[in-house]
């Protein structure tokens, strides 16, 4: 458990350091995630303690973005002014993306075999 928390904090730290040094426009935590993924692939497995700790943390992933979400109150003016464009984009772009991706996948898997 403790080792897992050390590892994820350490990998994020490395991620942030890489972002700072190279000015690559990718969030530090994403670099950390890539590093962890590569390590797991090399190691060919997830240690049981990692599995438990990751499940424990990710079970509450949704809770972790509540504080940032509340920040939306600071932009109430913007949202009430542009609600139509925002809702149309969220609804139609999401549904079109679902249909587009599914058709693409279906088409390629079919032509594969």
């Amino acid at each position: 458990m403790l080792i897992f928390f050390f590892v994820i904090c350490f990998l994020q730290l490395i991620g942030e350091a890489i972002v700072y040094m190279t000015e690559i426009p990718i969030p530090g935590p994403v670099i950390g995630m890539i590093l962890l993924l590569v390590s797991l692939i090399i190691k060919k497995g997830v240690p049981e303690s990692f599995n438990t700790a990751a499940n424990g943390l990710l079970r509450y992933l949704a809770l972790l973005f509540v504080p940032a979400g509340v920040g939306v109150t600071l932009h109430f003016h913007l949202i009430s002014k542009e609600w139509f464009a925002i809702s149309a984009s969220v609804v139609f772009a999401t549904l079109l993306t679902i249909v587009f991706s599914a058709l693409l996948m279906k088409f390629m898997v079919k032509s594969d075999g």
Partner: protein
Amino acid sequence: MDKIFELWPYLSLTPLLGITLTLGCYIIADGLYKKCNQFAILNPVLISVILISTALWLTKTDYLVYFEGAKYIHFLLGPATVALAVPLYKNIHHVKAALIPIFLTVILGGVFAITSGVGIAALLGASQETILSLAPKSVTAPVAMGLSKIIGGTPSLTAVLVILSGIVGAVLGSFALNLVRIKDPKARGLAIGIASHGIGTAHKLSLNETAGAFAGLGMGLNALATAIILPMLYSLYQYFT
């Protein structure tokens, strides 16, 4: 007796207030969500945000005062994002089933998600701030917020848009897929994972294990793809304007 009037200003200064309020509201929202059979519109994050915002508004508490405590919860987003590699790794063996179709679908689907979201908003006259905040809305919140900050959007607005996209995918996604007659659980799961990062879809997808695994795969791979592609698209856009 005077002390009672000083109590609120005093408590506002401690981080405890923001932490307690966040945990309390989330527990209520999560309980409601489970009681209502995980009905997607009652997304616990959305309900928590509404409850907390109302509480702050009623008590005339500034967001920054609230965040003074809530930032300790917010901070954990970074390490949790790194931890997403674990479920992604566990689903990665599904990639072997159809390596090239999956990668192409994730990359093209990810680009389509960004351009369609940005395009529709721009056509309807949205402001630059809104458009940039909408761009990463298809990927899971912690990654989307980091990307929003990098390209000059508003991370908190992005967080809410991410959740709303998740709800749209959960409520209308299956309907849209039935409309175009796609039955393959791999294609269905992957598409929903790419477009709406699996928020609230977990419940429905649990009916089909393959669709659930592919939704997780779509979510994880698109988080990586978008994190790499979106900043590139943004520099391209800056270059031409």
